[in-house]
């Protein structure tokens, strides 16, 4: 009996570690790449994908730091996180000669400020934060963040659960810079958010569209793709790019230093850059597409909706989140006090 138990433990332990499998360890946003796309990759390349998710850039960084260096082979950080990871020497330079589908990428989104010449990263998808509302519920129109303060919207708004974006939105509403670190301005932002609080039903970054689709909320400040998906389900939803300005982000492929399965990670990037694969991703999660070849394959529903296919001139107006160093402590205070 004892022998059997010991044997069993050893077998389980061995199956758990020991072997060096043909695999790739990916850390990505939740709701970003459909399961089907990953299964197809596994089948086509005979590589096992170990897939973990996060719901904010901060969580991505935390998971990267908590795990031993080399745990993850491929991550999808946004612009400001890429900048930080380069600065902290946590990601490696990319060997673009290993990618055959590189030319598919829209050149307008290459060589941006956060990673000049794309030494360390390549863009995957772009996103914007938009307001979406039920036009039957709202009298007139919503055009700005300040419109959300209307007491009639009590308990009817869903916001992203992201402290930088939401505090940034309050700063924009007050006419300040989205990345302002001035303590008085942050105090005003806190007051603004406290005024908004009675109208907030929930904070959710993972699937805010569900709140709109189940009519739990009538107004949302959510990712553009989530807005697009909600609009596919309900007819009376309207999308707005607020007049005070709005947040945009570009999520990127990047490989942490000491990644163990570098070649498999390149294969995965190259696979994702394929026009047909990107098409599948965009159809399921309609963020702003950055693949020129895929653009020709997309449906009119996608192309004609400004929530999903964010027009380039809109995108240029958008504001990136920037690193703010020690001011993060003040942001944390504001966040704790509005919750």
């Amino acid at each position, binding site marked *: 009996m004892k022998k059997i138990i010991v044997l069993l433990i050893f077998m389980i332990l061995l199956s758990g570690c020991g072997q060096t499998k043909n695999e790739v360890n990916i850390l990505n946003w939740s709701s970003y790449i459909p399961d089907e796309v990953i299964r197809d990759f596994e089948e086509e390349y005979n590589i096992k994908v170990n897939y973990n998710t996060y719901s904010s850039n901060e969580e991505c*960084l935390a998971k990267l730091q908590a795990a031993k260096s080399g745990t993850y082979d491929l991550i999808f950080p946004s612009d400001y996180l890429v900048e930080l990871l380069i600065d*902290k020497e946590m990601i490696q330079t990319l060997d673009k000669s290993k990618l055959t589908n590189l030319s598919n990428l829209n050149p307008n989104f290459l060589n941006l400020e956060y990673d000049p010449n794309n030494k360390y990263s390549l863009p995957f998808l772009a996103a914007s934060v938009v307001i979406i509302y039920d036009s039957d519920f709202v009298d007139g129109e919503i055009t700005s963040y300040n419109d959300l303060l209307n007491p009639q919207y009590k308990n009817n708004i869903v916001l992203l659960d992201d402290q930088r974006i939401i505090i940034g939105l309050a700063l924009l509403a007050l006419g300040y810079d989205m990345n302002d670190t001035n303590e008085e301005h942050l105090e005003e932002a806190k007051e603004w958010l406290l005024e908004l609080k009675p109208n907030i039903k*929930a904070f*959710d970054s993972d699937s805010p569209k569900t709140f709109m689709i189940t009519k739990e909320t009538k107004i949302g400040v959510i990712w553009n793709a989530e807005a697009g998906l909600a609009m596919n389900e309900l007819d009376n939803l309207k999308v707005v790019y607020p007049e005070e300005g709005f947040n945009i982000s570009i999520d990127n492929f990047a490989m942490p230093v000491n990644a163990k399965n570098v070649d498999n990670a390149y294969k995965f990037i190259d696979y994702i850059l394929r026009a047909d694969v990107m098409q599948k991703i965009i159809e399921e999660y309609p963020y702003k597409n950055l693949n020129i070849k895929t653009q020709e394959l997309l449906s009119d529903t996608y192309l004609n909706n400004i929530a999903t296919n964010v027009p380039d001139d809109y995108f240029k107006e958008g504001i990136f989140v920037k690193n703010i160093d020690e001011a993060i*402590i003040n942001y*944390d205070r504001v966040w704790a*006090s509005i919750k």
Partner: protein
Amino acid sequence: MNRNLKFICLAPVVIYALILIFFPLIYILFISFQTSDNYGGIIYVFTIYNYIRIFDPVYLKVFFNSAIIGLFVTLACLLIAYPFSIFVSEKKPHIQKLLITLVLIPFLTNSLIRTYGWIVLLRKEGIFNTILESLSIIDNPLSFMYNNLGIFIGLTYTLLPFMILPIYNSVSKIDKKVIEAARDLGAKPLNIFFKVIVPSTYSGIFNGCIMTFIPAIGMFFIADLLGGGKTMLIGNLIKNQFLVSRNWPFGSALSIFLIIVTFLLVRLYKKLGGKLDDLGGF
């Protein structure tokens, strides 16, 4: 030979207790006195700033809210579990066994999925609202969740077995003859209840309260899922320090603070005559 057996029995547990309990907690204590680099790293400079920061009104409010919700949940569990245990203990022994097993079954299935079950019941277009509306009891759907009520229901539900089991254990140990004797001597039912039954179950009550209150303030996922991320409990605050604000030292200081609160509660429990072995023993 005897030494050999002693070694086999004790070596693993000593190693375990030192490496997986003592050392991690000492390490957390150590980190709580270091400085954060604001990017998830630790700068090894001694500071007590992290402890001072706990007393910032903003964070004290989080502690206060958690304590309030924790107390309400504990009280609700107690008010359900106590009469329940007494009524069950009046049944025949084999029926008692069956009923307690029935309490255990939900407890043995995944707590997240049961939380999801509540979402299905409580949401705006959920089962409760649909039934109430179809019976014309209400015109507009009620908000059962995405507020503190949702957190309260979820926590009470999840933690109820932790209250029922210790209380049932202590109630079922009461000697029925003492109650009969009291009745024969002409004591009124209410007097019997407060003077005889309740005092002999103090340790069970307090045991249940500890096993309910402590998890209640630490369970971040119920506040996330049923509270709509609007209410921050201590568990959420600590989780945020590690996963969002990238401030391990402050998160560690909060953890140490929580451990101290826990120990004070356990001390109180021991003073009231409770045995440590009964905690968590089902």
